[in-house]
């Protein structure tokens, strides 16, 4: 009996030992930060906003997709036919399994999600200076508008999400597509709010969204909706602000970082670790860099673009590099690029910014320059029959090119007294050669209604009523339980 009691007491003690660790099962989370513990300090807010900008520098947004959608599809640029995933954009043979089609949608919506997270959490933050708070809020609104602008140009009307989604409520993510008009209304609201941003920044804030950027993109949004008066007046505000100037050198305007002409740029720096999307370097250059210069040679200018420049136009040699010409101390040999193609110098950028090898160059990419603002003024005004205002704006752009050190004498004469339709053509062509390879061409052709005509003339199989828009990824159509309808023809 004694033994039994002794035994039982040992047993009880050990059982109690185990049971006494009552909080044995309460393990506080390690190495995870919960949303309750975030947005408490100024640096949290700045970090959250940086993550919204971060999406500008991704392969499936700007670094590859933007030019694949906007330039490869047009007669302006091409890719070697062996690169099948990109070549299908050249000849509009788009299938549901293309990585560039499938990767773009989620990148844009992640940008929007991050913006919505900031917009809903930032106002409630206590520990932050109000001026900084408002500025950060408006920066993020601009970016949200910018991402929606990309979506509406590429896909048409899309689901409008303006608040963080609570996934226990499926109506918040099974959202149908809004109309194009509704999306533009949201874009206009966001850009308008951002007009309150500072006009300029200094030091390490250079590169953030400015008031001028908001106005310029608002003007562009108006232009795309053919709201010509609004476009013209908003664009004039950018010019009138006096913040921006056309640089005398087209080279400097397209190669240098954060110049007086630049209104909004993707900021980059080489040497940060990681591959492509993980680093903060420029990953656009390496696609366009010829293989004999150590790049991938997958984005080249065409003969068609080459021929579009007027005689003596210095911008041709600043945009396209031909066989026998020099870049970064090397001469482009023949056979390096496919026949009748050229290297795209704007995308290669300033050689001092590094080779861009390993997708980590130091050059920026310019989304909006003052010369585009002038071209918008020209285009808006000609459409409302203010021919002289249009001609004046057009002249500003041509004048800069004409006075470039590399221009031929007598090149790019002043255009005046043209008929409306001839002026429209002249403005469109000027837009093409001034902004060549800056990831805009396809959307211009579409909004002018001439995409089919121009692209079919190049021998490509563009189907009207289908190919003006890109298909929404099939997996997203499938998972939407019927709320998302695919674009016609796909």
């Amino acid at each position: 009996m004694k033994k039994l009691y002794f035994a039982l007491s040992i047993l009880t003690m050990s059982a109690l030992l185990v049971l006494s660790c009552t909080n044995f099962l309460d393990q506080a989370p390690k190495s995870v930060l919960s949303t309750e513990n975030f947005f408490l300090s100024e640096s949290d807010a700045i970090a959250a906003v940086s993550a919204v900008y971060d999406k500008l520098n991704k392969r499936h947004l700007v670094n590859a997709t933007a030019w694949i959608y906007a330039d490869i599809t047009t007669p302006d640029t091409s890719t070697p036919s062996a690169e099948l995933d990109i070549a299908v954009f050249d000849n509009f043979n788009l299938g549901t399994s293309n990585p560039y089609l499938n990767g773009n949608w989620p990148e844009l919506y992640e940008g929007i999600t991050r913006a919505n997270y900031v917009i809903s959490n930032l106002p409630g933050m206590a520990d932050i200076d109000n001026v900084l708070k408002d500025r950060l809020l408006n920066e993020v609104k601009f970016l949200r508008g910018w991402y929606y602008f990309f979506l509406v140009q590429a896909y048409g009307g899309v689901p409008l999400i303006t608040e963080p989604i609570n996934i226990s409520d499926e109506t918040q993510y099974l959202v149908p597509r809004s109309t194009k008009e509704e999306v533009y209304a949201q874009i206009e609201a966001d850009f308008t709010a951002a007009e309150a941003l500072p006009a300029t920044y200094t030091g390490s804030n250079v590169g953030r969204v400015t008031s001028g950027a908001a106005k310029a993109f608002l003007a562009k949004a108006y232009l795309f909706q053919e709201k010509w008066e609004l476009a013209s007046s908003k664009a004039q505000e950018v010019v009138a602000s006096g913040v921006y100037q056309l640089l005398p050198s087209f080279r400097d305007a397209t190669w240098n970082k954060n110049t007086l002409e630049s209104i909004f740029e993707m900021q980059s720096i080489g040497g940060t670790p990681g591959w492509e999307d993980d680093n903060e370097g420029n990953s656009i250059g390496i696609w366009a860099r010829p293989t004999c210069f150590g790049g991938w040679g997958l984005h080249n200018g065409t003969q068609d673009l080459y021929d579009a420049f007027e005689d003596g136009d210095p911008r041709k040699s600043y945009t396209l590099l031909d066989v026998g010409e020099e870049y970064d101390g090397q001469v482009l040999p023949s056979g390096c690029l496919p026949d009748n193609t050229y290297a795209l110098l704007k995308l290669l950028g300033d050689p001092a910014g590094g080779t861009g090898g390993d997708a980590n160059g130091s050059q920026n990419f310019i989304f909006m320059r003052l010369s585009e603002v002038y071209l918008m003024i020209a285009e808006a005004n000609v459409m409302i029959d203010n021919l002289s205002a249009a001609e004046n704006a057009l002249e500003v752009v041509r004048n800069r090119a004409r006075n470039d050190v590399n221009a031929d004498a007598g090149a790019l004469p002043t255009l005046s007294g043209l008929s409306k339709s001839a002026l429209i053509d002249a403005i469109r062509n000027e837009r093409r050669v001034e902004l060549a390879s800056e990831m805009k061409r396809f959307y211009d052709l579409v909004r002018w209604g001439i995409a089919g005509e121009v692209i079919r003339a190049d021998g490509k199989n563009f189907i009207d009523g289908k190919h003006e828009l890109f298909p929404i990824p099939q997996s997203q159509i499938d998972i939407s339980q019927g709320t998302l309808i695919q674009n016609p023809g796909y």
Partner: protein
Amino acid sequence: MISKLRGFSLHRGYGVRNIAKMATAAILFFNSLTAFSQSLEITGKVVDENNAPIFGVTVFSVEDSKFGTITDFDGNYSLIVPANSTLRFSYIGFQSQDIQVMNQSIINVTLESLTSQLDEVVVIGYGTTEKKDVTGAVSTISSDLITQAPVGGLEQAIQGRVAGLTVVQDGSPGGSPSVRIRGIGTIGNNNPLYVIDGVQTTGGLNSLNPGDIESISVLKDASSAAIYGTRAANGVIIVTTKRGRKNTPTQVSLSILNGFQQAWKHADVLNAPEYARVIRESRVNANTQRTANGSTDLLPLVPEFDNPDSQVSLTNWQDKLFRSGHIQEYKLDIAGGNETTNFSFSTSIRDEEGIILNSLFRRYTGRVSLDHAISEKLNIGATLFYSHRNSQGVPNNDIWNGALQSALTMPENFPVRNADGNFAAPTGGNAGIYGNSQNPVAQALRSDNSSPINRVLGNVFSEWEMLEGLKFKSMYAVDLTSSTSKYFQPTFAEGSRPTIIATLSQSSGTSSWWGFDNTLTYTKMFNNHDFSLVVGTSAQKESFESFSSSRQGFPEGNPEGLRYLDFGGQGSDLVSGSGGTATLLSYFGRFGYSYLDKYLLSATLRRDGSSRFTEGNRVGTFPSASLGWRISNENFLNKSEFLTNLMVRASWGKVGNQDVGSYYPYVTTVGFNNRYNYVFNGQLFPGAAVQRLGNPDLTWETTEMKNFGIDMDFLNSQIVLSADYFVNDTRDILLQVPLPQLIGQVQTPNVNAGNVRNDGLELVLSYNSAGDQDFNYSISANASFLNNKVTSLSTATEIIANNDLRGSDPVSRAIVGEPIGSFFGFVTDGLFQSQEEVTAHAFQEPNTAPGDFRYKDLNNDGVITGEDRAIIGNGFPDVTYGINFGADYKRFDLAVFFQGVNGVSVFNGLEYLTMNNVGGNKSAKILDHWTPENTNTTIPRLTWDDPNRNSRVSDRYVQDASYLRLKTVQLGYNFGLNVIQALGIKHLRAYISGQNLLTFTSYDGLDPEVTGSDLAIGVDQGIYPQARLVMLGIDVKF
């Protein structure tokens, strides 16, 4: 004797004094020898009741056990013992005998067996039972079967040995095969729970040395596994290691294995002239079609390919990449014991060169176990196991980066190295025509990665018989792993996508687990009632901590001596680190009862609490019960000579799974990551974003298991037959349900949603010949038939796996009503033979032409779109089986083991790659492509552009991968007494062993055994072919 020699020293040279000392020592030594003059040499033979010789019987002098030996293969022994010794004959499973040595010189002994096969002890959860009393579904594997295959890993060794246990290998040295018990129950972790000397773990088994294992019990149903509660949903494998035995003279065993392994198969690809012709023709065809469409943009033709026959095959890449790998293994075991203590010690080294260049696996292990009886009622024991392993090689089953994939897509026109000594690869404008292929030899040789892992498993326990029948056992077990890895990616210049910046990543992590189990066992027998009761608690804690760092930009030329972080570019630092802890607290009990050994009942109950879930969702209760009826003990069947056992069993129970992947799935997390950073005016700004959505309502998965079984034993286990039918329903499975990308790229939370059903039949049959002196044999076979079906998936109708093949649609998905990991794609319907056929069929693509695939219009809407896809197969086998044949004749022993799988499909991703890769080498099958002259074929026309997108994921690539393998053959010879005595040892066996000697399969890929994640089961992205091994071995016992 030794003490008298203490003053003797060799260092001082050979003076007279020293010679005197030496002489003294010699005399004393010889004196002691003469003490032996009173010894006898005894020989004899030990047999069992059937007069069959027993090999391995320990024969030793009770007075001084250093005089001992063991019987040889014929049962013979020979021993010199002092006169008047008592000789003891002892062997496990037999009654020991003591015989006094007088002056006889021959002592023959017949040993009586203690038990029959049915009384064999089987290890079950927290206890043992006799095999005949098992009412659940438990299978065992003995140590000689485990060591029969000359492989390095435990999982490989048990493949095919147990019905319902499927192992799929991955072919790489030191690789991780997938082990599944009774199918796949969940989308997450399907690994069974391994209990190794009390340590509970689910992975890292290639740290263990299979030679250390005494036995393995596989607990397949709920009644046997439920006592492990929330870790048991995928079944439990209990591993018991060797411990030595009391009252046994020390035995030293040495085992040496040496051999080679090679890939058993190479793929058939085009040679250089064929390649040139195929590329040229595909480009010409594309241009013809483009011209017909009015385009002037034509593909340039490669001038060298104008005369295809002038191309020369310079390199057979598979020959260069595969090699004969040398394997060697050395094992030393020492075990023994006296009346109170037994111990075992073992150490092993395995060094294995893989079948691919520059791949290898190395493992060193050391183990000590000790058991001591402090008193008759109190035992203590401890075990310590240490293992160091390391492996190196190129990625396996990786369609993007594998060297194997490069070997198949790199054309043969290239040499391995150019004249300047650098590796050759396609560069320049024509690189695309050559598929932008990488040089596989360069990839393999350049690979510089190593991940040494050090693991310690240990336990300390005590067992105390407090009262008669009442035992208290307490055990503390630990599992500590420390791993580091170093991966250097060098720069290289060859090829069209060279790497110009080198990267070094290093990481280090430790993970630890400890478990504290306390159980109280009570057994009581009276009249014909037999009771047993086990109650206990178990507390477990696991945690990990790791950090990693990397730098880019290393000195030119990648010098090996400078592959350290110090030499990487300043400012390119990338560091990260994390950690976590999870705990589990459980209470359990098992009650067993049997009456007259005829009616048996067993019931268990376990209650678990897990830290991974929030309060209120933490606790789960897992009951089980099983019944058995031994019909053969009923009066109408009793005393039957023929039918020694007939038992029917039924069981039911619930087990759980709490393995969510993250330790804190309930938290919505925000994170910083260099991926979110941005730069303003050249200055880096860190970014933070929401990473994962949490689910505070998350709780266990539960599996309800039912099992019905029948066991039949004839002629005293000469013939054994066993059948089990089971139905397992897994509910509330933990799923990351995919949501529309409108929510962003956050990781969606885990939810409890979805059910999966596994049901099937297992059969086991074995036959042991009655055996005579010279010849004995046995045959056993097992087969298991399994059906798997996803029965529901909450809101989603399907879950799509992440396994696209270089940008194709994902191949696999889980769909309600189909097995997990079904293949999904288009359905082909032959090739179009004429343009009329193209027009008559539903619209596919604008430029579809004769020779292209016709895809079925499944929804009859006249257009082939994404809606026209369907389930095209799945990777679940209909039946897996194993057949083992063992025989011994005189001194020879032979074991032959076949293993096979029938009725299984594989999506041949490697064929997909080599038929659709634009540019690059192709499968030789493409030579049978469609032309207007060659219309009777399944291979579509050659065209560079592929306007019809013949490269879609379709049933074209789904193949039958049924196979039968001659898995293991081992032929051994046991040397006779004369040789053994001459060498002064106790036993010597030499053998030759082969693994994967023959494979019968109609599958085209490199190997029909394809591992992968469970959601993507059966997709071959270029898996290493299994190695064919031939090894020579020697076992010596001292």
